[in-house]
């Protein structure tokens, strides 16, 4: 079952390999030739020793010199050709795979990212692909090489002297026993050591992140003692591992030593009784060595294959994740948007049977400002995501200027809606490149105008390189307020008819606060806007306040009309908060 699944998975990757099959076959053939060439030096050596040096047939010496020089030249040339072929294929393969994966990623719905998380996406795209690549090309070739080497060496040994060949085969299990005998304890011990090291580093992390507390309680000495203890434990475990490793190493020495000793002495015995030539003994010794080496590689193959299958599976997870949101065949380009937005009985669910938005009806006229309020999880953010078409509605429809957003090209929709996210994602490039992100062809004047509107121009001019100042890792660090204003400028530059604002919750210093409010007022002018509001000013100034609760709109109106509803949710809670704080204040003052 599992194997069938693996096979089926591999088949799915075949199309990636297909274009390179002729090259791969060429590579395999050259590899075989190379391997066989690699087996010749012991034979040449045998010939020289037996026929020429001992046998006295000196006329052959020059010819053998030519052969023994030409073999390294030939194999060097072949190796270069072979590596070029194989590297070319493997790097192309990795490129094709990554390109396809990334193309897919960009089409995948938000749901995918929510489920997977950045780390997992990254590992699929980068390390898993690399694993597959090295398996498909390098491993396959080394398996071929190992396989041929093993059998040819064994064959040669048996031909040179079948009795010694048999002894060699009998020694092989000893070699494997040593490996597998030690491998278990070593792995166990390494695992135990890792666990202990983990404990050390967890403890360390704790102490470092809580360093203020450690100091506050004057626990430095105690912590040192604990750390010493933990580290010492891991040290002891490491030493156990070292003992095993040294054991394994010496085991290899012992086994290969025994092998060489027996072969050498037996070989010499056969030389004495005349069953063998000395050159043959030498050749036998090198073949024996070549026979043993590949065995371990081959035994590890199964494990490596397993690793690869896991990677393949993970890559397929991305490739086969359904694309829910794609342009319809007859999708039209959304014409220049005026900003009329209508939600018609919109229902949406992330998980079947658990609706997050339960029948929302809302009509917004061009240029109106909408404030969405309600506690976390009430569906505010989801509603704006639906408008951006990050998700498709389950039933109902969202219409912009009368167009159902599912009937228009996604690109034409999203380019006309600006969005400012709560956490204001900015990239580690210059300020200019960040601002131009949505509209790379904007003029300098447009750029500065957008920055002015977002009240960030002056700040930018104060930075060392102005608009070319780098952000992020290698550049300047921004405060929350500056980030938000940059994000606003970025959105404004595309001059969207509809703007979605997800206000940050954190409190800002007085200057930032004032600037943000001014920026907001500037950008909302003449645009339809949806604000997930956290600021009183935003809410009070909104044309429509949408009060949401558990995926439904419970109240709709502006600040004044909503306050007038007796026992209305908005009024009730607004007053409760306001009155509550005042009375408490009086109490405290008393």
């Amino acid at each position, binding site marked *: 079952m599992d194997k069938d699944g693996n096979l089926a998975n591999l088949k799915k990757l075949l199309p990636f390999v297909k274009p390179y099959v002729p090259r791969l076959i060429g590579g395999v053939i050259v590899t075989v030739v190379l391997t066989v060439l690699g087996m010749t030096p012991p034979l040449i050596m045998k010939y*020289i020793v037996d026929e020429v040096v001992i046998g006295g047939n000196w006329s052959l010496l020059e010819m053998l010199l030519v052969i023994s020089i030409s073999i390294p030249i030939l194999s060097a040339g072949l190796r270069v050709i072979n590596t070029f072929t194989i590297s070319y294929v493997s790097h192309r393969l990795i490129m094709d795979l990554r390109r396809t994966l990334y193309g897919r990623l960009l089409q995948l719905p938000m749901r995918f990212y929510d489920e997977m998380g950045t780390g997992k996406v990254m590992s699929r795209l980068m390390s898993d692909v690399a694993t597959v690549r090295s398996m498909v090309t390098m491993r396959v070739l080394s398996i071929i090489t190992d396989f041929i080497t093993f059998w040819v060496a064994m064959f040669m040994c048996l031909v040179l002297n079948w009795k010694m060949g048999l002894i060699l085969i009998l020694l092989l299990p000893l070699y494997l026993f040593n490996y597998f005998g030690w491998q278990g304890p070593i792995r166990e011990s390494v695992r135990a050591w890792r666990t202990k090291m983990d404990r050390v580093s967890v403890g360390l992390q704790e102490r470092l992140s809580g360093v203020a507390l450690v100091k506050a309680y004057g626990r430095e000495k105690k912590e040192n003692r604990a750390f010493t203890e933990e580290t010492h434990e891991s040290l002891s475990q490491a030493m156990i591992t070292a003992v095993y490793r040294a054991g394994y190493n010496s085991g290899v020495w012992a086994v290969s030593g025994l092998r060489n000793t027996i072969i050498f002495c037996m070989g010499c015995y056969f030389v004495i*009784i005349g069953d063998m030539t000395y050159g043959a003994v030498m050749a036998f010794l090198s073949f024996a060595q070549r026979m043993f080496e590949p065995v371990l590689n081959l035994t590890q193959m199964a494990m490596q294959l397993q690793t690869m299958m896991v990677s393949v599976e993970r890559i397929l997870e991305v490739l086969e994740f359904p694309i829910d949101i794609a342009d319809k065949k007859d999708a039209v380009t959304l014409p220049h948007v005026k900003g009329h937005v209508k939600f018609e009985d919109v229902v949406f669910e992330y998980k079947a049977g658990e609706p997050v938005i339960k029948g929302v009806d809302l009509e917004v006229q061009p240029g109106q400002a909408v404030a969405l309020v309600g*506690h976390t999880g009430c569906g505010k953010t989801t509603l704006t995501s639906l408008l951006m078409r990050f998700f498709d509605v389950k039933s109902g429809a969202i219409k912009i200027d009368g167009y159902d957003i599912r009937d228009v090209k996604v690109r034409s929709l999203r380019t006309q809606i600006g969005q400012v996210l709560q956490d204001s994602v900015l990239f580690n490039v210059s300020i200019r490149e960040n601002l131009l992100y949505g509209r790379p062809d904007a003029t300098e004047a447009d750029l500065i105008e957008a920055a002015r509107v977002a009240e960030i121009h002056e700040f930018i001019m104060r930075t060392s390189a102005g608009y070319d100042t780098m952000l992020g890792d290698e550049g300047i660090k921004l405060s929350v307020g500056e980030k938000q204003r940059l994000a606003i400028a970025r959105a404004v530059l595309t001059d969207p008819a509809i703007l979605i604002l997800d206000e940050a919750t954190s409190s800002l210093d007085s200057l930032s606060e004032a600037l943000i409010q001014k920026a907001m007022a500037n950008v909302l002018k003449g645009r339809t806007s949806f604000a997930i509001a956290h600021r009183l000013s935003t809410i009070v100034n909104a044309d429509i306040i949408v009060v949401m609760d558990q995926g439904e709109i419970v109240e709709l109106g502006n600040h004044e009309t909503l306050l007038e509803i007796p026992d209305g949710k908005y009024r009730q809670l607004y007053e409760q908060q306001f009155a509550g704080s005042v009375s408490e204040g009086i109490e405290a003052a008393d």
Partner: protein
Amino acid sequence: MNSMKRFIKIYIKPYWFRMLMVMLMAGTTSSYSFLLGYISKFTIDEVLQLKTAGQVATDARMKTLSQVEKLSRRDPQNTLPHSWNDEDVQPPKSRTEKIQWLWWIFILYLVVRTLFAIINWFYNYNISFVGQRIVFRIRLDLHQKIQKLQMTFFDKQQTGKIMSRILDDVGLLQSEVTTTFVETTRHVARILIGIIVLLSIDVQLALMAFLALPLYVLTYKGFQKAIATTFSRYREAYADTYGILEERVKGIRVVLSFARERREFRQFFKRLGGIFRLGLKSNMLSVGLSATCALVSGVASAIIFYLGALQVRGGAMSVGDLIYFNMSMGSLFQPLVALTNVNAVIQQMAVVISRVFEVLDEDVRIEDREDAVNLKNVHGRVRFTGVSFRYNETADYVLRDLDFTVKPGTSVAVVGPSGAGKSTLVSLLMRLYEPTEGKIFLDDYNIQDIKISSLRNHLSMVPQEPVLFSGTIVDNIRYGQEGTTAEQVMSAAKSAELHDFIMSLPEKYEARVGERGSNLSGGQKQRLAFAMALVTDPSILILDDTTSALDAKTEAKIQVTLDRIMEGRTSLVITHRISTAMRADRILVLDNGRMVGWGKHLELLDRCDVYRRLHAQQQNTDQDTELFSEETNL
């Protein structure tokens, strides 16, 4: 290099004897392959008595050449007696003699092999031993140092992130240090022995062989440089792509909302192309290196062997010597290459080592004065006079000219927007930092004149996010004070209103708190932190935004506990919530490091702009948790 010397002096020297032993063992094992070659030579020449049949000597011998050759093909043993060679010094051995000799060689071989296997074991074991010990010592020293360092260090270093990296880096030393030191000895020994062996066999041939060796090294060096640059460019390209990709994946909403997919895709493709070219180039260079090296050593060996064979023909060399020479020369190439790598490894080590010393040499600035006093009873008056603070000379001031007094037993709330300097103020009081200017007094003592341990015993802080350590509940509560009795622990837990919960657990006080206290709820963690703070029965309590991470319902309950705990204690309450601040006797408003307000809630509403704005803003910022949550309808 200076730090390297110190490193050797401080960390390696204590193990000098073991290191010496290991190096000796390394030297011994390096002679192995030559020993093996010698045994072969001895066997060929002395036991098997193989001789060339084609020696160019007198005409008479030339005549017999073809005859001998034919014989040798049919039956090699017949070539052995060499009865025609009357100049031969050794008498030919009989078959039984030879077999007897062979037994001796068999035993010698086995003994040597066993001996070397044992030496090898000790060698491997001791390398690990020394390596692990050294790393162990460094880790301990680093840790000890961290514990002593002033808090400013941690801000500079992003809260210990880099520290833990250094501790990991040290692990690198473990594998590299000893191996590098020891392997270098091994290689040098091997090369020296090899050169002597080659020269002792045949000076002329040896000199010829030495011509090939530098060629080999030069090839290696030439390629190595190109490989290193290409590979580092490849890695850079890869890391860049990785970074950019990570950004895009994290900011996928931005990518999608600006409909930038096509452009992103094209950019990514371009980058992939770069990676492809560099990857291919780096592979080609690697194969170029190994192919050329194989070529050089292959051709050189062939030529040398040819020349050696001619020597044998001329009678200047025995068959055994030829083979011995060939074997010895082959084992010279590898250590030569390894030696060229040593420098790079040492450089890498030096970086880690100098980083280690950087930390170890860091100034410890907060230490007890010699005449520091031990405070017994503290009333709990706290006074700041003209206190300013900045992290270093080039940084902006975080706090400026703070002047205020907290009367014993009263509470002061510190409010202000994030980044106003609230937490720094507390750190100064705890003496985690020293004020840049001004003084802080506890009762009538400048806190710099009080022993740090004494000061911190009278002050307890409940951090914003409770930091719990893996261990049992009682371990955690006891954290603040060694040797507290079970009653004290229990009474602290009772004060924190956690006792009942603890008793409901199957293991009661011995219940384990998981990593980062994961099996406790937010409120329980917070209460545990209270208990930790209370076990020392401090006169001054500092609450650092203690309730901000809790939901409203839990907060309301915790608040009741807090009120009780704060009774009779001087308390400093850091908060960003006006509703919390209102409970305090006095409110201190900070904005951009300056004190912009001091007084009671209503007074401040009246005259402090920042306070008023914070208050107004919170009608909304708190709506998620308060305005619209059912729990506040209590």
